[in-house]
């Protein structure tokens, strides 16, 4: 989560198809390499209207939604037919094949679409249709995440298995994989605790390094109301010795 999060960066690199609505100067590099556009007016530097390009998600706010230079379509794995399949039973799909950031990219798309300003022009149907699709997509995504896939993941991760789970985890998206790892690590830690008991808790580094602290003679007299940390330790040690003597 955030600017430096590598998963966020990779997720925002997911691509969607977009169609140019106007001629875009100097954007011809967006044309796919094996483009079969044989129009006579194919320019070498300008991207012509109605040309299909593949745009990453991070470009969408300023190319598609705030400025409406491009019209975006949802990728195939967010289409209506696939949504229906997910609704029917999501746990058999290899979602990682479709997109390793299936859920995050879907959520991002939905939030971009829903927060984009609606056009005042009544002829701009595409955006309204897209908005409707995205509201449906959002509910399907949430339902899929929390649904049978999650239950299967819980079964696999929380049940103390020693075997190789990659046959299952290779079908999970990154988000689900994180959940799986959390569960697996937690249950393994619990098993270790049951077997071995508590591990030794080390002294914190702050306390360890207190002896190396350089204390000038003026400092010692400084705050008379607040005792220095070292003095607390001394008193504690004295008390402990006193107890042992008495006992």
């Amino acid at each position, binding site marked *: *989560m*955030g*600017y*430096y*999060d590598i*998963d*966020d960066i990779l*997720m*925002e690199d997911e691509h969607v198809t977009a169609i140019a609505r106007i001629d875009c100067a100097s954007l011809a590099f967006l044309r796919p390499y094996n483009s079969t556009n044989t129009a006579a007016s194919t320019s070498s530097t300008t991207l012509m209207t109605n040309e299909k390009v593949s745009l990453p998600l*991070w470009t969408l*706010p*300023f190319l598609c939604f*705030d400025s409406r230079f491009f019209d975006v379509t949802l990728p195939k794995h967010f289409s209506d037919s696939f949504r229906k399949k997910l609704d029917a039973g999501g746990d058999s799909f290899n979602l990682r094949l479709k997109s390793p950031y299936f*859920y*995050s990219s879907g*959520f*991002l798309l*939905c*939030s971009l679409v*829903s*927060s984009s300003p609606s056009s005042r022009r009544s002829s701009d149907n595409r955006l309204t249709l897209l908005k409707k699709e995205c509201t449906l997509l*959002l509910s399907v*995504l*949430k*339902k899929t*995440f*929390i*649904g049978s896939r*999650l*239950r299967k993941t*819980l*079964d696999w*991760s*929380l*049940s103390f298995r020693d075997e190789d789970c990659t046959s299952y985890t290779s079908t999970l998206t990154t*988000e689900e994989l*994180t*959940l799986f790892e*959390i*569960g697996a*690590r*937690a249950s393994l*830690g*619990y098993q*270790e*605790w*049951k077997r071995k*008991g*508590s*591990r030794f*808790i*080390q*002294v*914190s*580094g702050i306390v360890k390094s207190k002896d190396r602290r350089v204390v000038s003679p003026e400092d010692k007299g400084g705050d008379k109301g607040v005792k220095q940390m070292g003095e*607390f330790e001394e008193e504690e040690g004295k*008390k402990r010795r006193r*107890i042992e003597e*008495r*006992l």
Partner: protein
Amino acid sequence: MSSLSLHPPSTNIGNKDNGTVSRYSMQDFLSEDTKVEIVPAFDCPTLSFISCDYGPFIAGMSVPVPLWLAVELRKQFRCRITPPPWLCESYLTEVLNYEKDPMNETFFTSSEHPSNPDIQLTLPYHYQSIARVLIDVCPGDIERVKSINVILQDIDFLRNSKSVNILKRLSLSMDGTEGEEVQRNFNMRSGWKGMEVQEFKGVTVKMLEGVRGGDGEGRGEGRGGRGAGNDGRKEGRRKFRNERRREEDGMGGDETPTAKPGRKPTGTPTIDEDGLEVAQIEEGEELEEPTRQGAQRLRRFR
């Protein structure tokens, strides 16, 4: 940028400089504050410690002390530990029978004290740690230790599988297969004990974060409260989050920061001059970005 937070929290607390410690060991450490009764074999006036005074110790007279002190004295053979009232075979068998019964979907809460019917007795929060320590240190002081050990292990196993079932039922209710009562009744306070919390909180929080979805939509739903179901879910999550926060405060807040499901910044995302989406943070909002770089970057936009 709106997305699920994908960093998995580790099972260790603390950073590499200070040394990591397993969460489960930390629970053992925190459990040592619970009071147990001991019968000292020595005489001693009141002992003053930083947090509290204990004593006076009179040989033969029962006195309440924290578990760490009791264990220390017992190891030096200076006292006898009276096992706590819940650590007896009859009570634990009752707990076990309750957990075994497949009709009981929630955890065992409380029942009468075996000898004193007026007092309600519950399994303490750290029952696993306390039982383990007492059985290790003073097996002779506890009646029928071996069978208690077996019963406790059975109880652990049953509660574990029950917890997974509870999570599964929560997921069933959230994806519309079952009713929404589970969401309203999902309250960690009345169920999970120390070790189970550590085991399942990571998974539960990740689950609920996933359901929230992206920033705008998830939060909007939670605040709007479009129906009874949503409120229940919000309640459960809030209680869970408070529970986790209290847990983390108890540990001294040394936990890796990415484990916290903090609140995301509000405000509509805007585009700054780099063409990147930047969330606006209002005054007084709690920030999610705990890293120094993140904090510095966000400070610019305040």
